[in-house]
């Protein structure tokens, strides 16, 4: 078994264990809080018989360990329970709301990489000079500002005062949503050949995705900068200079690639943080994603739905980190080389 495959199976096992841990944590937190969940869910007007029936149906009279057993059995079968708010299976609800959130997060992630990395590179190449100071200031400012503050500021500037972008929502009024294939409006519109809808959806994505991406852009730029500066101090850079390679080539080929490794790890974390921050941005731009669902079920104390939403987000968080680990191990020459040595 190659080292990358071994690493993958090892990390996968750990991630699964952590996910089981998360399920225990969130399950027990949900059950130890004061108050009868059945009573809270049904409201003060429900009769005692209705509450008792719900307690029976949800196994709430069993000991907590047994309850967790029921929960785990359903979970393995892909059943996260039924939302008391929408009266639909939680998995169905999440499947309906998740694509809107993911579409937003993916576009924001793309912006983070496309803007953050070059910004950090420029800052590192001109380290200590004017572009560097500017890039550093911008990135600190971006990191310090919560996503919802960016949302509000961008909305005021670019949707109200100078209305170049739409104020809220995923599509303009009158534009019909494309048939659901992936749930991503942009992709679905492209696949069904509706170019107008595609551009409209993309147009609506720009402001919220920027608000979401800004702190990640700052963090990425900051890290790329510091890790490139670190790399510039290495002897092999001096050697490359001695060979007479152009500064551009040195920056691209010798300083940027090794510097990418620590940055990638942080990119994974940032990407995961965006899943959480999407809640804030969606609120500002009235985006019909997981946040609308999450906040709604939290306000209604809808236990199964809350647990389900947290589980799904934790799972995505773990998957992201797993993917990043694998990419890092592929890029990192130390791991590649040890594989080559193992083969020979």
């Amino acid at each position, binding site marked *: 078994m190659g080292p990358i495959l071994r690493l993958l199976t090892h990390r996968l096992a750990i991630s699964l264990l952590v996910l089981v841990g998360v399920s225990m944590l969130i399950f027990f*937190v949900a059950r130890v809080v004061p108050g009868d969940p059945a009573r809270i869910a049904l409201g003060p007007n429900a009769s005692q018989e209705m509450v008792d029936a719900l307690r029976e149906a949800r196994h709430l009279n069993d000991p907590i360990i047994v309850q967790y057993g029921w929960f785990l059995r359903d979970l393995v079968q892909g059943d996260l329970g039924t939302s008391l708010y929408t009266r639909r299976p939680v998995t169905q609800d999440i499947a309906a709301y998740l694509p809107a959130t993911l579409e937003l997060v993916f576009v924001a992630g793309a912006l983070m990489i496309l803007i953050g990395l070059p910004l950090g590179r420029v800052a590192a190449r001109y380290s200590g000079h004017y572009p560097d100071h500017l890039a550093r200031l911008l990135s600190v400012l971006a990191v310090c*500002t919560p996503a919802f503050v960016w949302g*509000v500021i961008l*909305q005021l500037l670019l949707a109200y005062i100078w209305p170049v972008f739409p104020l809220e929502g995923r599509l303009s009024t009158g534009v019909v949503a494309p048939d659901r294939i992936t749930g991503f409006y942009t992709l679905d519109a492209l696949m069904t050949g509706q170019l107008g809808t595609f551009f409209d959806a993309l147009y609506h994505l720009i402001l919220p995705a920027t608000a979401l991406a800004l702190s990640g852009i700052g963090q990425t730029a900051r890290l790329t900068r510091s890790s490139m500066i670190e790399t510039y101090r290495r002897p092999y850079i001096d050697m490359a200079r001695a060979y007479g390679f152009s500064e551009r080539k040195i920056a691209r080929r010798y300083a940027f690639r090794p510097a990418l490794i620590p940055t990638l790890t942080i990119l994974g974390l940032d990407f995961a943080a965006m899943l959480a921050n999407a809640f804030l941005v969606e609120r500002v731009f009235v985006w019909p994603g997981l946040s609308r669902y999450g906040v709604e079920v939290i306000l209604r104390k809808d236990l199964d739905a809350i647990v389900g939403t947290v589980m799904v987000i934790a799972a995505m968080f773990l998957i992201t980190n797993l993917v990043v680990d694998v990419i890092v191990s592929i890029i990192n020459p130390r791991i590649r080389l040890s594989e080559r040595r193992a083969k020979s």
Partner: protein
Amino acid sequence: MSSRPQSIAWAEFRSNPISILGLVLVVFCVGLALLADVITPYPTHVGPIGDFTAINQAPSAAHWFGTDTIGRDLLTRIIYGFRLSLSMAAMVLVIAMPVGVILGLLAGYKGGWIEFAIMRLTDIFLAIPPLVLAMAIMGFLPATLTNAMLAVTVMWWPWYTRLVYNVVRSEAREGYVLAAEVIGASSSHVMFREILPNCAPAVLTKITLDVGFVVLMVSSLSFLGLGVQPPTPDLGSMVADGAKYMPDAWWLSIFPALAIMLLVLGFNLLGDGLREAFDAEV
């Protein structure tokens, strides 16, 4: 890792204008929060009652940041918002930091099953985005100030555990630890008297950075309507409420938003400065 003498650290800190800017911002915000009762122009506007003869006024000489929908002075409420945010951050860290540090010391120094249990628990907490976990906890509890603090505290300690754990792991191999062990010092002596002082720079830097991040977290929760409830002046909920009156009453959400930015920026710059000065890895 953190072996710089204090005088050198201070000299390093002083030579960086950005760190000084951070310090000034922090002193400014903390000063406003402490003196809120004395310096705010309309201290009675903290509560639910405003001045109905002056509703929805744009920024002016009498009301620098304008007034809200029931005529309360926004500047007053923002300054009290600073006080609330900072005291919540202090409470969260006062509880989360010692818990995290002690667990990190134990895990790093004792090893074995203690290490396994503590670090795997830490992994579990760190596998859920903090905001989402705090939101979920708020989902099971009534939305009050105390509960919001509790929810943020519950998810904050693992960061300190992991930080201290890493420091301990590298310090435990140092000669001074071995020397103490050889002369028969108890493990609690080694942990708290020998190793802990060497974690201080990293932990202090982390605390400084964290004040900003806890403020961010708490205001995010109340922005979503899951934290501090009105009429308590919280910066996050002020942004959320104000957003309903955009763009006509733009000041209602923009000024509280900028206030959060300023507060977090100050602690971030100060924390960054400390990190560079102490040469600490956080």
